[in-house]
């Protein structure tokens, strides 16, 4: 592995192979990555971080491709991190998001990287946030993070992205689906894709009606609901406009604090787990939990002491 600082320099200078190799080192948590982080963040240029999530088959990758095309027309350089699930059994993965994005492959101003989730359950990989930071440092803006096909509660993306877009499709469920807790609650923008299917507009109307009635302790604005047909670019310019319009709201202190709190909690959890696992008492504590001499929470408290 080449010198990480050198890879970062190359990436910041706009070279693709150093960026690609830096992303691999980030993904593998290679030795030296921790030390590189301050420099990586200092090199950040404040890219708009946009999360694209939604159920499998709703058209997330096709929409990312269409949005990339739209932002290229606007002269922006677009970075994409596309996450697909790792097998819980073998650790293997098939990453196919790129199939929908091949029209941009030769464009030096679009960079697409596939990432396997490697055991994380929230729809992202553990190092996705660092990968996004690397694309920011390399001058891509916006940076789009496409999650694993999400069910109802993979809401991790909302803690990372400044703007979270939930992609739905027509006939994906009735009005009750829209008022359940979970994914739709973290949406800053809802896109009903496959707008050429029957009932797309009706689905959008239903979602709008149900999402706008939030009250009580919910502070955030109800999300806008738009319809796109990503395969034909229909509605995609309006979607790009809506995402851009949300950028300033996302940077208000209240929202920035929410994300920071989430990210800090995550980092703390990860660090604590790592420290504890390297402690000399780790093995014996695992034994004690396994033989039910102690409950997991009490054991964890002991390890952190």
């Amino acid at each position, binding site marked *: 592995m080449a010198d990480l600082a050198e890879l970062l320099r190359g990436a910041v200078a706009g070279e693709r192979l150093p960026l*690609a190799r830096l992303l*691999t080192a980030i993904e593998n948590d290679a*030795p030296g990555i921790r030390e590189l982080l301050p420099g990586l963040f200092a090199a950040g240029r404040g890219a708009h971080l946009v999360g694209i999530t939604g159920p499998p088959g709703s058209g997330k990758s096709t929409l990312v491709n269409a949005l990339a095309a739209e932002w290229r027309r606007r002269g922006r350089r677009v970075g994409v991190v596309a996450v697909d699930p790792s*097998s819980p059994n073998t*650790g*293997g993965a098939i*990453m196919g998001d790129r199939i929908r994005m091949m029209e941009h492959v030769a464009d030096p101003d679009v960079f697409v990287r596939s990432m396997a989730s490697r055991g994380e359950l929230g729809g992202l990989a553990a190092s996705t946030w660092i990968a996004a930071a690397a694309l920011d440092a390399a001058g891509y803006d916006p940076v789009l993070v496409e999650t694993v096909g999400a069910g109802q509660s993979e809401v991790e993306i909302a803690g990372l992205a400044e703007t979270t877009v939930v992609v739905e499709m027509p006939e994906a469920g009735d009005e009750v689906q829209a008022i359940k807790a979970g994914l739709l609650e973290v949406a800053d923008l809802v896109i009903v894709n496959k707008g050429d299917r029957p009932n797309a507009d009706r689905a959008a109307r239903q979602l709008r009606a149900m999402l706008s009635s939030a009250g009580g302790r919910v502070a955030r604005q109800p999300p806008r609901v738009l319809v796109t047909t990503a395969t034909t670019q229909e509605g995609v310019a309006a979607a790009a406009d809506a995402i851009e319009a949300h950028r300033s709201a996302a940077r208000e202190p209240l929202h920035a604090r929410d994300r920071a709190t989430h990210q800090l909690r995550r980092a703390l959890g990860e660090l604590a787990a790592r420290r504890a696992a390297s402690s000399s008492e780790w093995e014996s504590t695992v034994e004690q939990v396994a033989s039910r001499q102690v409950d997991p929470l009490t054991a964890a408290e002991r390890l952190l002491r």
Partner: protein
Amino acid sequence: MNDEVRSTPIRVLIAKPGLDGHDRGAKVLARGLRDEGFEVIYTGLRQSPQMIVDASEQEDVDVIGLSILSGAHMALLPKVVELARERGMDDVLIAAGGIIPDADVVKLKAAGIAEIFGPGTSIGQIARYFREHARRRS
């Protein structure tokens, strides 16, 4: 050969260069490699050598696997090697699978295709070959 266990999955890009639309083999292989613990990036049909190398560069894969059944292998496969080496991807293993006559196999290997897997090759054989020959990472 190195027996040490890699701590991180090997990344493989599976591509179909050229114009033939027969991707069942590529998909079966992608699935089989997934089950062997590889991270497989599948780019789909009708890729030019340029597209394959561009994608491989961004994905920083350890292995490029080319599936070809059209008969255009002599025109397309050496081009992939050439472009990859031009980009500085010297340590990326490039292998191919498909129906390729023995005489061409010799020429393709001379052009830098590391190995060619013909009909009847098992997924296990391919997985073993990739494990033994893909570059090592820290």
